[in-house]
């Protein structure tokens, strides 16, 4: 399984990037939860550390086999995920008004996290099977559309608007990368615009409110409007050099809600300033570009498209979260990849990174 050439082709850059991100994440979480004096709080960064350990083991497991076995697993994994999503809607645990989790003994697990990977897998399989170098027209794409709409719809019902949107963007990116006919693309975008009012009225109250608050933050002074206000203050007050590690007043005095999850980035911005956030963003940028490079270098259609899908997952998570906390996008509850606290998210991300590593390491296997 692991022959010498694999080790020669071990992608040290990728591993280094991941380790750097993990390290910064734990450091940041320590600060973010520093101010909570009760027992649960300051242990969060330790929990994140343990999750990272588990994540890295998953990462290593993902490298050991040849990823083209996954081609065969793509559709079954997809259907399994859909089944889990249905089960969650039927017997899932309800927390804060939405039904997203399944309990397995002491732990809870979110099938929508699994959906990210299986979605990317199944789309990669679909497009690599088609082959050919013609542009895709709308009529060719009805199957992917169904593949995308089913899990997105189920996730929407939980309700989890953020993750559904995110999944949609990732899928859309994958479709675009395999080249869609320009006219078809325009028609599709036109349909989206027409469908927008329908979607709007289909949204729940609080989801509508989130969008309205984004446009007019004063509308919801108690909920999302407050979060964004405080986030911008936190970020802005960091200025160039930041206030210093563990010195963020927004964080310490608890003006910033959800600071170890959705708004972890704002904590970094307050304490490390523009220097810090630019550094972090550059790390992500580098990770994305490196991933695209891996896609380019892969001579296997399936691997290449899969790599793009994984890169899309990274890209969209970063963009949506950072956009959200800086006030560029409405609050949709997407945590920052590898940075925010969260076990399920971490595991699924590390699994995806493992796949990326896998593809990178085995590119020599094709001629």
């Amino acid at each position, binding site marked *: 399984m692991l022959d010498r050439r694999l080790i020669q082709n071990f992608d040290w850059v990728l591993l280094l990037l991941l380790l750097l991100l993990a390290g910064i994440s734990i450091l940041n979480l320590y600060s973010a939860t520093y*101010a909570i*004096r*009760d027992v649960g709080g300051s242990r969060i960064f330790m929990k994140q550390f343990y999750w990272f350990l588990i994540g890295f083991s998953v990462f290593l497991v993902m490298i050991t086999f040849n990823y*083209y076995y996954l081609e065969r697993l793509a559709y079954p994994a997809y259907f399994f995920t859909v089944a889990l999503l249905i089960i969650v809607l039927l017997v899932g645990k*309800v927390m804060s*008004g939405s039904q997203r989790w399944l309990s397995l003994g002491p732990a809870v697990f979110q099938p929508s996290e699994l959906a990210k990977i299986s979605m990317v897998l199944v789309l990669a399989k679909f497009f*690599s099977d088609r082959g*050919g*170098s013609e542009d895709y027209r709308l009529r060719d794409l009805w199957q992917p559309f169904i593949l995308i709409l089913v899990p997105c719809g189920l996730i929407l019902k939980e309700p989890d608007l953020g993750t559904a949107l995110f999944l949609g963007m990732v899928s859309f*990116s994958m479709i*675009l*990368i*395999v*080249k869609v006919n320009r006219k078809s693309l325009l028609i599709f975008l036109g349909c989206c615009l027409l469908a927008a009012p329908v979607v709007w009225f289909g949204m729940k109250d609080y989801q509508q409110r989130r969008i309205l608050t984004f446009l007019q933050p*004063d509308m*919801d*002074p*108690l909920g999302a*409007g*407050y979060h964004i*206000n*405080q986030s*911008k*203050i*936190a*970020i*802005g*007050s960091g*200025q*160039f050099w930041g206030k210093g590690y563990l010195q963020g*007043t*927004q964080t310490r*005095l*608890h*003006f910033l809600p959800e600071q170890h999850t959705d708004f972890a980035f704002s904590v970094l*911005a*307050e304490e490390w300033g*523009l220097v810090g*956030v*630019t550094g972090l*963003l550059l790390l*992500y*940028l580098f990770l994305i*570009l490196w991933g*695209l490079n891996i*896609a*380019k270098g892969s*001579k*296997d*259609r399936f691997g*290449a498209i899969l790599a*793009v899908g994984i890169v899309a997952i990274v*890209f969209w998570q970063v*963009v949506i979260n*950072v*956009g959200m906390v*800086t006030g*560029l996008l409405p609050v949709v509850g997407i945590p920052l990849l590898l940075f925010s606290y969260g076990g399920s998210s971490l595991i699924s991300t590390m699994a995806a990174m493992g796949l990326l590593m896998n593809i990178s390491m085995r590119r020599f296997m*094709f*001629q």
Partner: protein
Amino acid sequence: MKLSNFDPVSQDVFAKQLKIAALFVLVIFSILILRLWFLQIVNGSAYRDRSENNRIRLQSMAPFRGVIRDRSGKILVDNRPSYDLYVIPEEIHDTEALLNRLAVLGNLEMALMKERLSRAASGYPFKPVCLKKDISREELAMLETRRFDLPGVMIKVRPQRHYFYGDLAAHVLGYLGEISEKQLKSGQFPNAKSGDLIGKTGMERRWQKSLNGGRGGEQVEVDAAGRRIKVISQKLPVSGADVCLTINRELQTLAEKALSGKHGAVVAMDPRNGQILALASSPSYDPNLFITGFDGGTWKNIVSSSDYPLHNRALTGQYPPGSVFKIIVALAGLEEGVITPWEALYCNGEYSLGRGRYRCWKRWGHGKVDLNRALVESCDIYFYHLGMRLGVDRIAHYARQLGLGQKTGLNLGHEKGGLIPTTEWKRKRWGTPWQGGETVSTAIGQSFVLVTPLQVATFVSAVFNGGHVYRPQVTRWVRKPGGESIFEFAPQLIRDVEIKPEYLELVKKALSGVVNHPRGTGSKARLVDITVAGKTGTAQVVNLKKEKEAKAKGEIPWKYRDHAWFVAVAPADAPRITVAVLVEHGGHGGSAAAPIAKTLIEAYLRVPGG
């Protein structure tokens, strides 16, 4: 080696796509960094200032819970301001000194305050800690005037539920309590927080959503001392809807006074539509205590007392109906044709069935008795015969038609359905076949038969209003503060009984005789100017033998004494009120319960307009 399935042409196309993607990524990231630059550099110092002086607090504004009124609009339950004393730990300079002053000014115990503060020490340093709820006016004045000298102290106002008349209609109104973990998790209360008070019983619970209104809040900027500088934005709370009951306050007061010192229930109803005019259960309790808090002893008394003050006896008290049940047996007999109004049976005080010997309450018998006389003087022997002719299943059929043996559906919390035995029921429940002697007892409302006072009021109303069994209701309307209606009373017909109108008339006439005829058992309910109809009932609690033994020993102990029933309707020809009275262990229905009904009817009908 695997063969690549990626032909060079596709590869080139793909590579071009990747380049476009990379470019897109770069553009987006530039936008993000630009935005950050905008926030941190361009507006950086402004944000820095705001963060240093950040005193933006979120303060929740509790909504005004809707008011509950009686049918005439008089307020029974509303809200009054309650002042609570808070401190913000982070802002206290000298804890010991502050606590000492508070102990004096606010009548607080040092130990209690210290305990509350230490419990909160593990939380957020800026979160206010409540030291005392509902301080008195004097304490409020003392504290408010010296607040400049008490850093870290905050007084919050919140509306507190107030039951105007103490324990009046407690079982109908209900009380508030803290929302439980289970309820929070269930998703039925989407906007509730831990610590919120919600209706737990009665009308407070029935209309919880409408009464509650919607929470509001504000973003407030405060200075270093915690004083409000300005309100940044506000979401006003939505007041709850008001609830108007069908209950008549004066009647309710009378009913409860009549029951004071006794255990029992009174149900007064409008037979034309099912509106409940009064619903009393004794012993009762004061819902205000649930809010101001019980001391340990009182709570224990209430919960574990064998008097069960929290139980609403009108709905959950199941008792044998005794002679009141004869009304149903009489109607069943007529409708089934096993007896005619003129057929006279002979009562000599005794009745034998097999090896069983049954007696009439009148030792030596009534003599020749027809249907009318049997009801007026409540002859048991007549009904033993009638019962045997009908059989228990036919009796059950008519009892169920009139609503017995099932819940009425009055939406006021826990209700019991009573019991109407049938041969099938007995076989299922006890595994033995039905005995003839049990029919005999059933016919006079003993044996397994159980009814609630609410069911009695309901079925007798149906007898007098032409056979319409209406669902009892206690809500008249529910309206939002702006006037928009959430609920308006409308009579709910459960069913029309299948009994010929002439039979109903016959029984009505007999029941009128119960009260007005010289030998009627209900003479204590007689009124000079209003025709009252009714029926007495004396329900045995223990069997006759035990009772006789106890009588021989002297007085019968209270718990062995019979339950006293009386149900009355007035005016008999065009009824406007039905009153059902049950006095636990009250003895004779005619003497213990009938006078209560009389008092209520008199008060209700003598007032112009009723």
